[in-house]
């Protein structure tokens, strides 16, 4: 290896670094989109558009919650057992993921949450994602009716970390000893064996492999829908139960991903798909599949069965783009 070759090797390495930095920070996903046509013979024709080769998948399902907007709860002035930076990281990621899945979403604080939950007329058109581990007293203080009424009117809550209602947050702090929304044993106590092993059909289709079921819902709850993995004690790492006309979806595990390590991103992406699909209690998977396309567009036909909605996603394993299509009533 002559002198110039050693320098050339360093130069090539530097060039790879520059190219990698550019691709890492600016490439992102490939700008895919899809067209869906419903045929009279009960099939759906799907065209996936995009310049470059890509992997894709589809899920046909029933029981999609009808919301069209997602509120991401984040309030630095209200106490929380979860670190604000962890909450902020998650919400920033979810905002990005939901945007690329065509879901309208916005941040909301404790005051804003009270306003939204007070409007029971539009409860079914809004979902709330909370990772604070505590409900603010603006909706769940001495008068818990704001929160409960909103759920009963058709609201959808996606909840991460903690027993719902046990910790109530106030401006500048938290108060233990709140009233848990769900009964004893409804959520998995962190002191129990918290790792799940049996996988649900939903989790398999979503590639959701979060095994940490801490605070996860019991599968014995009436109307329970399993979206994740289940422990021997019968708690799910992602599950949904009805509450009045609304629904509560609980995601197990810690927020900072300490148990998940490098797979936390996979859990968060699958959760973004869950929200983008509007999955809630009563959601049933009809059929699912995957494929891959080369350069340009590709078209394929699937039988819709009794499905009410179709979700298309793209990605090499984890999803990087998604879109929900509501199918016309049969």
């Amino acid at each position, binding site marked *: *290896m002559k*002198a110039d070759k*050693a*320098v050339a*090797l*360093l130069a090539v*390495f530097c060039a*790879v*670094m520059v*190219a*990698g*930095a550019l*691709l*890492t*920070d600016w*490439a*992102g*996903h*490939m700008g895919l989109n899809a067209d869906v046509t419903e045929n009279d013979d009960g099939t759906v024709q799907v065209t996936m558009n995009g310049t*470059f*080769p*890509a*992997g894709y998948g589809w899920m046909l399902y029933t029981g999609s919650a009808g919301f069209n907007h997602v509120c991401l709860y984040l309030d630095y002035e209200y106490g929380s057992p979860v670190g604000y930076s962890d909450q902020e*990281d*998650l919400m*920033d*990621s979810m905002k*990005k*993921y939901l945007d*690329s899945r065509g879901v309208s979403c916005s941040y909301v604080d404790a005051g804003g949450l009270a306003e939204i939950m007070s409007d029971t007329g539009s409860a079914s058109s809004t979902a709330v994602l909370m990772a604070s581990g505590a409900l603010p007293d603006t909706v769940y203080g001495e008068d818990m009716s704001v929160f409960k009424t909103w759920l009963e009117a058709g609201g959808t809550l996606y909840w991460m970390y903690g027993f719902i209602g046990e910790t109530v947050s106030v401006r500048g702090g938290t108060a233990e000893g709140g009233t848990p929304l769900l009964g004893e044993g409804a959520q998995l106590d962190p002191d129990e064996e918290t*790792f*799940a*092993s*049996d*996988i649900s059909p939903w989790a*398999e289709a979503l*590639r959701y*492999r979060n*095994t940490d079921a801490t605070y996860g819902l019991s599968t014995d709850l009436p109307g329970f829908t399993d979206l994740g*993995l289940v422990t021997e004690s019968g708690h799910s790492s992602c599950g949904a139960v009805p509450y009045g006309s609304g629904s509560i979806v609980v995601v197990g595990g810690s927020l*900072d*991903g300490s148990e*998940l*390590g*490098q*797979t*936390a*991103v*996979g859990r*968060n*992406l699958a959760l973004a798909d869950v929200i983008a699909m509007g999955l809630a209690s009563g959601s049933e998977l009809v059929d699912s599949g*995957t494929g*891959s*396309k*080369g350069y340009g567009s590709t078209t394929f036909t699937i039988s819709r069965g009794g499905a009410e909605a179709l979700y298309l996603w793209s*990605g*090499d*394993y*984890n999803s*990087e783009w998604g879109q929900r299509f509501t199918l016309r009533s049969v």
Partner: protein
Amino acid sequence: MGDGVEMLRTEEGSTDAVISKILVFARNPVVILIALGLGIRLVIAPFLTFDLDTHYWVQALALVDNDEGLYGSLGYFYTPVWGYVMSVMAGIGTLLGVTDYATLIPDVIGMVTGEFPVAPEITSPAFNVLMKIPIILADIACALLIRQIVIELIGDGRKATVAMALWLLCPLAIVESTMHVMFDSISAMMLLLAVLLAVRRRYFLAGASLSLGVLTKFFPMFFVFVLAAYVLRREGMGSNGLRRLLHAVCGAVAALVLLEIPAALSGQLSRSVFFIAERVGLSEEFLDSVLTVRSLVILLAVVVVAYAAYRLLRSRTSFRPLEAFVSMDPAVRERKVRRILLAIAALAAVAVLVYSVMSVSLAGGTMDVFTAVGMKLVTILSIISLLGEVYVAYRLLFCGTFDGTAVLSALAASSVLIFLWPPAASYTIIMVPFLLMYSVVVDRRFLPLSLLVIGLFALAELPSALTSLSSIAVYWGFPSVGTAVVGAIGFLTGTVAGFPVGGLIMAVPDVLAYVLMLYLLLRWFRPGQLEAGA
């Protein structure tokens, strides 16, 4: 007509010349060895893969695909180098139509939380090959660098080729790059490049290469002392040597700054250096509080003030610590250095132990104290490693005959000293080139032992090797998923007397290799051994 015949003859002549050149090239042992090393790796690459780390690479690329950069969310814990390499390879993969990275195997989900680490996602052969290619190329570059370093330090082409051959056919190097898909070879390549550039007195570029090596996987950091000693010994311990050393430092800082600019601009600097910081016991929170413009300005001010004070002392007094140290009687100096280093090691060990006991005893019981002390042993061993590195550098700096063998001896001792705390097999890749060069060039008696240590570390990967047919089982259907994936993982995650089978299989060769490595070090530190070639 005549001109035409002449032209034809000339063309025939030049064709013959080209063919004969190709034949000579093809008969070149270096070319044959490179082809053999590359061939072995390329043949294995599609078929055998450890799927644990590759599934992490899938998660890391999911961050990139979702506009998170490398550190926007949890998913990638290394410094940016490997992330950037993966991004480039993923981009090439997209252009080639590699669109299926992995498959979830539901039957493995229940085994994920066991004591032996396994992944339920099995990566595709195409993805595996994509990720392996840059590491395999780094392997080949390492081979050429090893050969060139030996040639330039020793001037013996035959020994250089033997050392290169041993690396190319080294089972550990093949396993780590081609089956484990671990990027330690890239780190080793940058370190070897730094050594070669230093030998050629291109210190700025050597510093930059070393910095990139450290930023790839931390361990080249330990070579800083030996390489600094090399520069000072070669260029003199006066102003010229210090100026050359400063060139190397500037190169290292320039590479560090340029590489970390994207992470710094997106406020993710502490996450991007977390892998390095964790190894020296620093938390992400601590880094967040320290890595600020204010702290850097303060650090710079401290350096400037200290330098000014030093210059002032020199000009006003007879304060000449460096000169006094250099002119000291060698035997006295040796005793002093040993005493100082041993004192520092003892003090540091006591301080770390006291701190770990004190910090736990307030809240926990006896077991907590034992656990905390056990964990702090790693810190103590790391401190001893560093002091050992300083001693090796000192010996190089003041060795009787400064030549290629002295340099190779110091580099080899330095490489083994890194792993005073028991290492994972893949980490030891950084040590292999130096151990081979030393054993082939300086002291052949070390060769069997070195090969045994390297072989045992390769054998420690046996449990993962048992699962290495998973990808082709899932994607090509042979052998069956039940046998190659569920059966193999089930066997490894099973327990014997409470210990995971996989862990036990791994522990036996790992412990043996570690003990032999300690023995190697003891042999090295016998009087005169470090300068055996001198």
